[in-house]
Every structure is written in C-alpha cells, then in structure tokens.
C-alpha cells in the first residue's frame, strides 16, 4: 500500500469510528445536533478523500448518504430510530467499499446488492427528490447570475515537487474534486517549465496550476482536499481579493512579469486589479489602518485562524515500533546505568556514585515519559463495545443497558489491543448467557432490561477491568456436572465455589444448552484466559445465582519493565515483583523454634505457608547466616518465600527466557543485573498455585 493510501485508510477508519460513535451515542441518548454534525462531517470527509483517490463507488454511495445527512442537519428530515439503524448499515457498507477500493478488488454481487438496497432506502428518506432537483437547479441558476453571499472566489496556486507523480495521487483527481466542492471559474496549466521532448523525464512533475474556485467552502475545507499531498507540493490558497497574498505568489514565480500577464490573459484578474493592488500595498505600508480595505483585513484573519487550529489539534502518528525501539534502548540504558551504580559502590567512589544516581533518576523520568507515549485512555476502544452489545442484544431480543466506567483510565496501547478481543468475547457471553430474556427477568422480579457494566480503574500498580452483569449468574452445579462428565475434575474432588466458577475457563467447557452463533461453542473462555495470561494478567469470576456475574481482569500497566525486589538464594539471584510484596521478615530463632519442621510460620496469629526456594529449585547452601521471609500476596492468598539475602528494589527490564525455560514453572522471565549476572523473575501466582496444590495433595 502506498504511503498516501495508508494515510487515507487510517483517516477513513478514524472517520468511520466517529460515525459509529455518533450513531451509537444517538441510539443511547437520543438524537442531538452535535452527533448529527459529527456524522455529517465524517461522511463528508470520507466522500472527499475517496474522491481524491478516484474511488468512485465510495464517493457515489457516500454522496447519497451525505445528502440525506445534510437534510437531517438542516432539519428537513427527522432522524428516526430506523434511520439510525440504516446509517449504521451504511457505515458498515462504506467500510466494505473502502476496503474493496483499497485492495483493488471487484465488488461481489452481494456487495452490489447491498449497495443498491441501501441506496434505495437512503433515497426513500430524501424529501421529494423531484422537488429537490428543481430547487437545486434554481439555485444553480442563481449561482450563475449573481454571487451568493456565502460564496468566495478563492485563488489556488498549485506547485508540485518534481517527484509528485510518485505520490500516486493524480492531479486530475484533485482538480475534478475541486470542481465538486465549487465551481472552477478560471484555470490554466503553467507549462513554462515543461522541457522539450528530448529533455523531458516523463515521470517527473513540471506542470503547475493556477485556478480560481467559486465556492461556499471555507479555507480549511479546500485545504482538506490536499491533505494527503500537502508535503509534496507548494499550496497557496487565498481569496482573490487578497492582493497581498497574490503579490507574494507572483513574486515566487521565476518569471513574475509573464505570470502576471498570464493571469490577466486567462481572465483571473484585470490589469486594473493589479494597479489597484499596488496602491493598496502602498496604503498598507504606511500603516494607515483606516484606509485598509476590509478585503485585506479578511486576508489577515484567515491564516491566523488556520494556525491556531493547527496547534490545537497537533498530534503525531508514529509507527509503534519506533516507540518500542525507544523503550528497548532506554531499558538497556537502565541496565547499563545499574552497572555503573554498582561499580561506583564497589570502588567506594562517592562522586561517581552520586552522578550515577542522578543519572538513574533522570533515566527513570525518561522511561516514564516514554512509557506514557504508549499509554492511551481505554475509553476510546471501549466505546466500540457499545455497538456490539446493542447488536447482540437486539439479535436475541434482549434489552441491555450498557455502562462504561473509568474510560479515562490509561493503559498501554498494546495491552489494550490484546485485551480487546477477550473483552468482546466476555461481554458477548454476558449478554448472551448472563442476562435473561425480558419476560424471564420480569418473572424473577427484576427490571426487564438487564445491565452490563464495563469498568476500568487502577489498583496497586495494576489496572483492573471489571465486567458485571445482573443476569442469572453461573450455575455451579451445571458447571461441576459438566466438568466431571468431561473428566476435567474427579467426582470426589473437594472444590470451593471459586474453583468451580473458574472451570469455565477450561477448554471445551460450555454450559450453554444451545449453541448460538454468538457464543457457547466452548471455545473462547479458555482462549480468553490464555490471552490474559500472556499479558501477565489474571482473570477471576465471582457469581451469585440469579443476581449476576462479575469478571475481574487484572492487568499490568505495561509489559516491558516492572519494579522488582532483588533477592538471593544459594548462588542465584531472583526478582520478586514489588507490587506483590507485603513485607519482609527475618526468620529468627523464635520463628524457627515454633515451626518445628513444618512448612509454615505463625505470622501475627495467621498461618503463613512457606515456600523454601532452596529446596524448590535445588539451590546450594549459601554462606548467608540469615534467612529471610518475603511475604507476598496475590489475590486473597498470602505466602512466605524463604530466601537467603535481600538486596532491595530493582528496576527490572523483562527479557524473555529461551525455550529451555518454558517448562520451568514459577519463572516468568529473566533480567540482566548491573553486575552482568542474570536474575530470574518469579511468577508468584504460579508459585502459589504450586504451593497450594502441594498442600492439598500432600
């Protein structure tokens, strides 16, 4: 895909998202002018940009939709529920058309059929077409006979870079698009620079254009036409009355005198205009504001306004791999600097130590700024679920109130992207299986419409995402029966409610009595869990029969770096994620005495199971005289990890371990320490699982 096409595609997807957001918002909150405006602008932009690429199918369809929207905006047509539905379908169809155009495919008969169906439906809503055409025709006559007040005669100077043709955008398309947004009054091709045949490089751009466009469009609208090629050309747009800008363009030409004559010759201006303008420039120079005509005042305000908007909306589209690269490099710097800190300590060089620590602080700042680049609010990607929920609910005849909380919570973009599919699946499940049919709800004394809530909030270095519904809840017995039947658990197993609920994440277990096309095929929840696990997150279920179900997903803020706590057992250094550490205690003689060889200690009258890392990983005895216990908490479980040395906090850059470590449970990755040694990162949930299993089985 060429660069311009890619830009177009990104822009179009964005506009389609705007459309959907506006439509869904109106479905939920009723019709309002803001959303209608947003909808219209999005359709208008798509029509415009597609036109520039010559995607006629898209333009043709968008044009009709835009016409109808324009009437809606002017209050000629009322926007009804069924029209919202129609526009949603139109939006999807537009997306299809755009894809087809970009991939240069041929429309399938189905697409053509949809196209015709939608067009006829859209047209049916248009107020009496015949009449409309007549008024249009009348307006056209008016336009020709006299300048409408809203119209401006713009002067456009289009100069192209020599390799403009490589941009893939045909100038002809640009020009004919201008014809669409206004009336090209005068135009001439500047062919002075085109060499003779023997000297020409046919793929290089020599030609340039001057034209005058009579249009109601604002400066920004015209600029939008050139949005994708503005880097490949020199574009000047100004009002034809703006003599100052005109003289600047004239000055820029190699042969200004000839150019001025051409402008007169081609009917752009009269010789008198230039005489006048000279006088005006003089008047301007004496800074006699009173004699400055309104025309030049206008010319001064227009560019300023344009500039302001540019700063307001300034944002960069950066390839995410660039940010990843930066994060990697900074991570390496953090590691390198850790080494310096350690060297300085070993040398006892206080000055060096201090400098290194300052550097470490700065690196930390940079790191968090860079990480911040990746952070995006979850709200934008959550918004698209609204449509899916509405569609799903409608399809199966349920009524759902969908609420999003904490949309401003920030999360790593990559995490959001990866969590999106699992979330969608879980939401669909909630709608399909969780919430009951309206009649059933009524019989249970519940509100006919069910509620599904998606919330996000930060909690202790993690982001928590909750999906809550007030449906029928999970049927514990059914799950257990199915799990036993499928041999996932044995009949005699003693399971807590939580254990049973969590079985829905096992592969092949779906309790849906009927498989619908929405969910219930038994694939999904296990994939959901796996995806979440891959993000170093966890997912938990809680449910009450007939009251509802709550899924709690906990995700790390980011994937690349964690705050760790460095410890040593035997000869190996390990890292425990800091956010899981509750406290560190020294395992002194009094504890040991009370342990009496058991694998737990009494911590303030609570039993704390202990995991001895030395025996767990067959570490050698260490020289350390002291033993320490790091108390970690994960979910509702607490566990003590018996270790030798405590070193303290350590910024840990997670590096994946090779395949050879894939089957070592309890180790999630590695890192390079300041000394150049390797540190292994504990996977605390895994270790706990191991400990708990060991306890129940043994």
């Amino acid at each position: 895909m060429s660069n311009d096409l890619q830009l177009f595609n990104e822009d179009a997807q964005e506009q389609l998202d705007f459309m959907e957001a506006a439509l869904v918002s109106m479905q939920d909150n009723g019709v309002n002018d803001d959303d209608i405006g947003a909808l219209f602008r999005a359709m208008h932009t798509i029509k415009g940009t597609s036109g520039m690429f010559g995607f006629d199918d898209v333009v043709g369809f968008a044009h009709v939709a835009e016409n109808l929207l324009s009437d809606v905006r002017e209050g000629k047509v009322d926007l009804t529920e069924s029209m919202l539905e129609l526009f949603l379908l139109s939006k999807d169809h537009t997306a299809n058309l755009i894809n087809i155009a970009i991939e240069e495919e041929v429309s399938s008969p189905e697409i053509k059929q949809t196209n015709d169906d939608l067009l006829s439906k859209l047209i049916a809503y248009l107020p009496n077409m015949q009449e409309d055409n007549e008024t249009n025709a009348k307006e056209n006559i008016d336009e020709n006979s006299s300048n409408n007040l809203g119209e401006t005669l713009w002067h456009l100077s289009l100069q192209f870079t020599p390799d403009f043709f490589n941009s893939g955008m045909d100038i002809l398309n640009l020009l004919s698009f201008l014809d669409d947004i206004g009336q090209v009054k005068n135009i001439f091709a500047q062919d002075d620079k085109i060499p003779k045949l023997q000297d020409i490089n046919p793929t290089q751009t020599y030609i340039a254009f001057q034209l005058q466009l009579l249009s109601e469009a604002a400066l920004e609208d015209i600029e939008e036409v050139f949005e994708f090629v503005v880097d490949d050309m020199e574009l000047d747009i100004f009002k034809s009355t703006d003599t100052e800008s005109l003289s600047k363009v004239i000055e820029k030409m190699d042969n200004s005198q000839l150019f001025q004559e051409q402008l007169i010759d081609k009917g752009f201006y009269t010789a008198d205009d230039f005489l006048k303008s000279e006088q005006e420039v003089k008047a301007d120079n004496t800074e006699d504001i009173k004699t400055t005509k309104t025309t030049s005042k206008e010319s001064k305000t227009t560019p300023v306004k344009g500039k302001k908007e540019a700063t307001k909306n300034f944002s960069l589209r950066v390839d995410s791999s660039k940010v990843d690269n930066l994060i990697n490099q900074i991570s390496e710097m953090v590691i390198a600097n850790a080494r310096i800190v350690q060297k300085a300590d070993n040398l006892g060089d206080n000055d060096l130590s201090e400098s290194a620590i300052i550097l470490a602080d700065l690196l930390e700042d940079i790191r968090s700024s860079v990480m911040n680049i990746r952070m995006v609010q979850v709200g934008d990607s959550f918004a698209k679920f609204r449509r899916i929920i509405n569609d799903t609910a409608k399809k199966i005849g349920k009524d759902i109130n969908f609420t999003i909380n904490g949309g401003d919570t920030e999360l790593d973009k990559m995490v959001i992207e990866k969590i999106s599919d699992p979330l969608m699946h879980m939401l669909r499940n909630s709608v399909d299986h969780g919430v009951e049919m309206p009649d059933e709800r009524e019989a249970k004394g519940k509100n006919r419409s069910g509620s599904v809530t998606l919330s996000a909030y930060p909690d202790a270095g993690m982001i928590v995402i909750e999906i809550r519904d007030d449906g029928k809840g999970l049927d514990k017995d059914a799950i257990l029966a199915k799990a036993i039947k499928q041999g996932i658990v044995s009949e005699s197993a003693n399971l807590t409610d939580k254990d049973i609920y969590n079985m829905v994440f096992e592969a092949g277990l779906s309790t849906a009595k009927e498989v619908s096309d929405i969910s219930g095929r038994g694939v999904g929840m296990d994939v959901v869990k796996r995806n979440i696990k891959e993000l170093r997150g966890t997912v938990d279920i809680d449910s009450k029969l007939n009251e509802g179900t709550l899924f709690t997903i906990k995700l790390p803020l980011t994937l690349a770096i964690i705050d760790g706590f460095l410890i040593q057992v035997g000869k190996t250094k390990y890292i425990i994620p800091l956010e899981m550490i509750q406290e560190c205690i020294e395992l002194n003689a009094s504890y040991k005495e009370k342990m009496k060889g058991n694998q737990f200690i009494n911590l303030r009258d609570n039993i704390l199971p202990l995991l001895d890392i030395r025996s767990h990983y067959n570490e050698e005895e260490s020289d350390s005289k002291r033993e320490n216990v790091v108390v970690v908490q994960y979910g509702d479980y607490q566990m003590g990890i018996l270790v030798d040395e405590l070193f303290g906090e350590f910024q840990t850059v997670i590096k994946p371990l090779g395949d050879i470590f894939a089957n070592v449970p309890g180790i999630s990755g590695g890192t390079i320490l300041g000394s150049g040694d390797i540190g292994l990162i504990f996977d605390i949930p895994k270790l706990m699982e191991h400990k708990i299993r060991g306890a129940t089985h043994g």
Partner: protein
Amino acid sequence: METLEYDKLTIYEVNALKDSLLEVVKGISDNLILDIASVEKIDMPAIQLLLSIQKSCKEKGFYLTLIGVQPSVEENLKVCACDSLIGGTS
C-alpha cells in the same frame, strides 16, 4: 499521422511513449497529428508529456493535434485546462 496503439496513457506508459515519438518529433516536417482513438484513460503525467511534444512541435513551427479523442479523455483534458491539445490551435 501517428496512431498511438495504447488503451491507456498513464505514468506507466509515458517512458515508452516518449521513446517511440522522439524520432518522429525530431524529424518533424509537418503538423503532427496523433490518433488516440484507442485511449480510454489518461492521467497527468501523460498529459504533461503531450504538452512537451506540443512545445517541441511549436518550436519548429508546427502544431500538435489529437484526433479520435474519446469523451472520457476529453473530459480529463478539460479538467486541467489542456483541451487546447485537441483543437491544435494553440
């Protein structure tokens, strides 16, 4: 008269077109007439090349005229104000 046997004249054809007409234009001794009846599509690089040919002809005192111009091509030439290529009077 030269007949251009292309169904489209675009940036992909301009190099070949230039090569094929270079000798013709060099040895030109009369007004040049190009039959483009087979051409259904034209883009700006091709139009630019035609303008270059027109320039070279003019320099030797001859005109370039396009004949057999299809409506879609004529439309394109009009959009960029290069329809003078058809009339051959420029």
